[in-house]
């Protein structure tokens, strides 16, 4: 292709890009009188074209080819980048196993008592009673080891989520470009059905709790990134202006003002992340993660909805306890920071 025709091809693309990238592209069409008639006309036109072309079928179908190419890519990654995943896996496995051992070493009455006390100090009498009762129910239903495994999974998932999400949220709060770039990715992470990535995750990391954690991470990270970003971006302009007027550098602003003030919102992100991680517990058991999720999945596989329900109830109990405790934490942070 000579330069001339190359340029001819690029020009409309460049124009399109300009149109999409311009700040006006971020606004709805202004409401001129001719907008609605034109809209109706456009739709009628596309009807006409559709009938003129004479077919309701989409003329091309490249889905299978693209899909197969992607499969090949996953295969390639599996064979060639596995050392990378393998090293992640080793670290995480060690972490998970030790945590689970620790939790199981803990006598169960002590764990229940501690949970009750935390609720009592942080949330309320009512919640303390509720959590103790809920955990006792789980214990006498024979779900204690499964519960502890799930707790370990959640703790690891949440910890990793925070470790990934908070820096990313902070970073994207500082860069509009990164923010715009990340947003659809986060959307995709949250809405992509987990069935899609279960197989690649297993291919990369093998079966087991680590894969479960990774699959949960994909789902659990976005809210923490979003809320960290939001928490920093939504800070009152007056407070930031004050710090700026003292001649603070970007770094000082971030460390001394923005992050401390955004803590409550970041905590709300942690709360969300915890719940998301819990909601993945059952799905994670499809790729070998254990705990309550596995019990649920086994109940499904054995057509024992009653047993699945009991294990599911365990997840609900854990979710409510973790939600209330992290919410209480958020509220405390909020109180510490509110009412300038």
């Amino acid at each position, binding site marked *: 292709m000579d330069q001339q025709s190359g340029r001819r091809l690029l020009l409309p693309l460049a124009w399109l890009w300009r149109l999409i990238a311009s*700040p006006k592209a971020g606004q709805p069409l202004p409401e001129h009188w001719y907008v609605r008639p034109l809209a109706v006309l456009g739709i009628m036109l596309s009807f006409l074209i559709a009938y003129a072309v004479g077919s309701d079928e989409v003329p091309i179908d490249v889905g299978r080819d693209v899909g197969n190419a992607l499969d090949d890519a996953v295969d390639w990654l599996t064979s060639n980048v596995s050392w990378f995943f393998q090293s992640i896996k080793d670290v995480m496995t060690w972490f998970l196993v030790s945590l689970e051992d620790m939790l199981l070493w803990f006598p169960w009455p002590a764990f229940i008592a501690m949970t009750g006390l935390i609720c009592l100090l942080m949330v309320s009498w009512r919640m303390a009673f509720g959590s103790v009762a809920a955990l006792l129910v789980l214990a006498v239903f024979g779900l204690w080891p499964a519960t502890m495994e799930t707790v370990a999974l959640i703790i690891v998932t949440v910890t990793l989520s925070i470790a990934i999400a908070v820096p990313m949220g902070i970073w994207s709060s500082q860069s509009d470009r990164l923010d715009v770039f990340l947003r659809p990715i986060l959307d995709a992470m949250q809405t992509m059905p987990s069935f899609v990535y279960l197989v690649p995750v297993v291919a990369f990391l093998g079966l087991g709790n680590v894969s479960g954690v990774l699959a949960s991470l994909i789902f659990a990270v976005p809210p923490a990134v979003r809320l960290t970003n939001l928490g920093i971006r939504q800070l009152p302009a*007056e*407070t930031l*202006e*004050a*710090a*700026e*007027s*003292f*001649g*603070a*550098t970007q770094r*000082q602003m971030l460390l*001394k*003002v923005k992050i*401390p*003030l955004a*803590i409550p919102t970041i905590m709300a992100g942690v709360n969300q992340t915890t719940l998301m991680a819990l909601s993945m517990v059952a799905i994670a058991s499809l790729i070998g993660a254990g705990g309550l999720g596995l019990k649920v999945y086994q109940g499904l596989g054995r057509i024992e909805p009653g047993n699945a329900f009991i294990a599911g109830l365990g997840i609900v109990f854990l979710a409510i306890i973790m939600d209330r405790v992290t919410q209480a934490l958020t509220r405390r942070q909020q109180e*510490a*920071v*509110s*009412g*300038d």
Partner: protein
Amino acid sequence: MTAAEGRTALSIRGLYKVFGDSDLEGLELSRSGQSKDEVQEATGAVVGLRDITIDIAQGELFVVMGLSGCGKSTLVRCINRLIEPSAGEVWIDDRAITGMADDELRETRRKDLAMVFQHFGLMPHRTVLENVALPLEIGGVARRERRERAVNALELVGLADWIASMPNQLSGGMKQRVGLARGLAMETPILLMDEPFSALDPVIRRDLQDELLALQSSVQKTIVFITHDLNEAVRVGDRIAIMRDGEIVQLGAPNDVVLNPVDAFVREFTQDVRLHGMVTAASIMDSSAEALAGPTEDRYVVREDAVLDELVPAGLSATQPLQVVDDSGNLVGVIPLQRLARAMVSDEAAAAIAAE
């Protein structure tokens, strides 16, 4: 009053600020003399400031006032470049802050410009002491020294007992005292204050005004003080600039502004101020040669800066025009009793006489 005699500490020359996407076009139009509304009509850009030129002397307490949205905050924020001016220059002593690179600007903000905010701008996660020390921390002052300076500043504003409290334990007036202390602790020559007392109850407000005046008489900073309350302006200001639609419509000493409003806008604005404390002998005296040559016996003598409230008792006991003398005792004018009576009748009459 230390008026505009001293060395110029802060100089604003031809400052423009236009907000919006089409700010450059807006600036062009604004420069070509179009009004705020016209510019907004034509380009959608909002004119925040239009051709502001002010010289503020070392140690002066310079008040900027005007209705909401007239551009007061924009002006004060252009001085430390929290808002980037569209055109024009701001000089601090002999350095143009408008041309500074980022780190130089930061240095200037740390060393030369402190600011106090209407909404206090305290950091809710820090104690009072930590709040006051924050600018010093940012400026890299050593821990001990910044604690010392912060405590000193807090003592100055009477909050020595509250250093360990959190901001949300304080009342509004106390919060603003913290804000003030923070500004003072920076020990900058210039202090910018954007409606520092507007959010406060009237009684607390007066207290703080008094405190500010007392402080100022000891520390002698150059202060730019923003308010929308003329009473406050008259009370604390050495000079007052009245703004409207981003322009300065009148600039002068308080009594000048009150007594000689340049137009109906300023007059309406100044209506509520108590004139009797403002009208001086000098402003209503007749200094024509003819008057000075009038009957000279039995005249009551008053100083030229005596205000109406002082003149009236003198007038009541006099039977002849009052005799006005300057500091060195020279006769500079006379006030016929008739004229004094007219000045008394109403504020407007007084202003009218003064304007004659």
